[in-house]
């Protein structure tokens, strides 16, 4: 028997749409707000005293949709959870918008939705509202997912890319370039096999632990598209400071380094989906590093550099042999559809 596929009717808003909602989506994303099935979600925040919320959105078009260590579903949940967390906030609610290509296997869709539900549970967020559209075959590529997230910002938090200060130590929460190289090596036309997998992971507990500790932190960023090199450049420009990192301090898995070498990529510019960069005042950096290392996703964390007082807006790297070079923003063609 042919496998069941998504039909245009599934996005019609009619009977089949409703049955997909009640049979597939509701049981997975199980929570009372979504179950109301109203046009929007009404969120009760009466027990929260904070005056600020953080709000972020991101759209996921990764190709392929399944890859070692995850799929587009957990990528979409973790990505937005992390974007909200990087504001210093505690993410609580997500919306999910699905754009599905007609003909997608229902079994694949279920797998993705199940992964999203598991990822949301792991991150402690609720998917409270959503939307599904189906477009004719060829008008989208299997599935695109948009997620938006809302988080609560504790009082007196001020983490932003514009807040890097001379003397700050720069911490990376683990090995770089895992996600980008995973996607690249799982594309069929490259015909490569390796044991590399995505680092996609929720970082909100790590951030909460840092915030709760009371240590002084100035910048949090997740170096996704454009990688560590581009993110550091953004921060140097936003804060009008100079950044110096050490090549021999930057953690890269040997398999990932090998793939980069073969393909001619610099791991500094390859996407990550479960790593954060933290700029911490020098007195507090070691304590923050210890907190990050205690987190499930921060075991390989280390200090990779520091902020210098010059107002050049540039990033420099001390190379393996003791030379110095500029780490520029990424220019030219990036790997398309990496997230």
């Amino acid at each position, binding site marked *: 028997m042919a496998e069941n596929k998504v039909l245009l009717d599934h996005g019609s808003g009619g009977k089949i749409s409703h049955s997909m909602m009640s049979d597939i989506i509701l049981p997975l994303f199980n929570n009372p707000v979504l179950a109301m099935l109203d046009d929007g979600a009404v969120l009760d925040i009466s027990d929260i005293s904070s005056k600020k919320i953080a709000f972020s959105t991101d759209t996921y078009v990764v190709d392929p949709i399944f890859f070692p260590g995850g799929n587009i579903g957990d990528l979409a949940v973790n990505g937005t959870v992390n974007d909200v967390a990087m504001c210093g906030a505690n993410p609580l609610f997500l919306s999910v918008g699905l754009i599905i290509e007609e003909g997608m296997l229902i079994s694949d869709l279920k797998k993705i939705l199940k992964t999203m539900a598991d990822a949301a549970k792991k991150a402690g967020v609720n998917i409270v509202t959503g939307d599904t559209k189906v477009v004719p075959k060829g008008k989208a590529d299997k599935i695109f997912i948009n997620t938006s997230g809302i988080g609560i910002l504790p009082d007196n938090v001020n983490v932003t890319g514009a807040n890097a200060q001379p003397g700050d130590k720069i911490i990376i929460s683990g090995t770089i370039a895992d996600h980008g190289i995973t996607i690249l090596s799982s594309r069929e036309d490259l015909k490569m096999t*390796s044991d590399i997998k995505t680092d996609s992971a929720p970082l909100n507990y790590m951030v909460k632990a840092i915030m709760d500790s009371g240590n002084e932190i100035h910048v949090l960023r997740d170096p996704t598209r454009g990688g560590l090199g581009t993110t550091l450049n953004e921060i140097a420009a936003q804060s009008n400071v100079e950044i110096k990192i050490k090549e*021999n301090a930057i953690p890269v898995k*040997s*398999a990932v*380094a*090998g*793939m980069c*070498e*073969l393909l*001619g990529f610099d791991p500094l510019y390859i996407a990550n989906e479960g790593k954060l960069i933290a700029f911490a005042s020098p007195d507090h950096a070691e304590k923050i590093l210890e907190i990050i290392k205690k987190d499930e996703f921060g075991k390989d964390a280390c200090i990779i550099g520091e902020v210098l007082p010059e107002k050049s807006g540039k990033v420099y790297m*001390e*190379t*393996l*042999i*003791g*030379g*110095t*070079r*500029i780490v*520029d923003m990424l*220019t*030219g063609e990036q790997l398309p559809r990496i997230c």
Partner: protein
Amino acid sequence: MALKYVAEYRDGDLAKKLIQSIHDLKIGKIRLMEVCGTHTMSIFRYGIKGVLPKNITLLSGPGCPVCVTAQKDIDTYIEFAKSDKFIVTTFGDLLKVPGSSSSLQKEKADGADVRIVYSAFDALAIATDNPEKQVLFCAIGFETTIPTIAATLLVAEKQNIPNFSIHSSHKLTPPALAALMQTKGVELDGFLLPGHVSVITGTDAYRSVHEEYNIPSVIAGFEPLDILKGILMLATQSKMKRPALENAYPRAVSDQGNVKAKEIMNQVFEIGNATWRGIGEIPDSGMVLNKKFEKFNACSRFDIDIQDTKEPKGCACGEILMGLKTPEDCKLYAKACTPMNPVGPCMVSSEGSCAAYYKYNR
């Protein structure tokens, strides 16, 4: 899949020892040319200039295949791309290089079928898959690339593939070095010779140039320790006033080179003149299709003859490729000419010296 023999050649402690040895020579002013673009990139990537004594100047040479491709050849590739009948296949670096009025990238945006390939064999596969189209392969490159393109043509010949042809702008390294040494104003105290090219040519290919001009010459690999070792050997030769042809890359390069690859190359191509961008025509510095394989020559098959055009005003690519200027001496550098909007090919290619200066040295 950790790679062996990579980290070993990037060892910081060993590098420090080599750097110290270079400093200990207390050498007077010398100008060394790294002939190959991959060396240029590696020198910048590891910050090698900054750790050398001030007296040693490193200059980029003519060893970036995209940079030395004549504007006429670029215009020829673009002319083919403009035709509906053609799929033009190219290495990615060539895409953005401006011709006299367009680039392959602009033609692609305008609807031309221009495809990036990683090997000439990929281009041949495109020809097999698209029998209703003509497939042109933009054949640029040095001794490193020519054998695989020759191997592709041997297969095309054997399988009798009618819709595949090339426009060859291939170049040979040793004649270019000889031409450089004869150029007025070029003052060099040593050549850091390319690793990959030498894997094919072997050390022996440089012997006549070395003997004629009595210039220190050392073949080196591309890792930082390889390059530092090569520079130490060149500086030592210079200090001792004992110019020699030496091989600092014996793990890959032999005296004879890759005999099989050279045989394949010579089955398909023969030596001919070639025009180098910014330098001009250098006798016997190119590889053109021989009689038997002339049918794969796109220009003669389709009767295309592009006139030579003037290179862009102010662009110093030619002088930079000969070590007469550095990118910073060029008036356009980092102003009118950037990687986002390149004027000359040295700013386009990932191996171009202007691109290296811009990326790592501003």
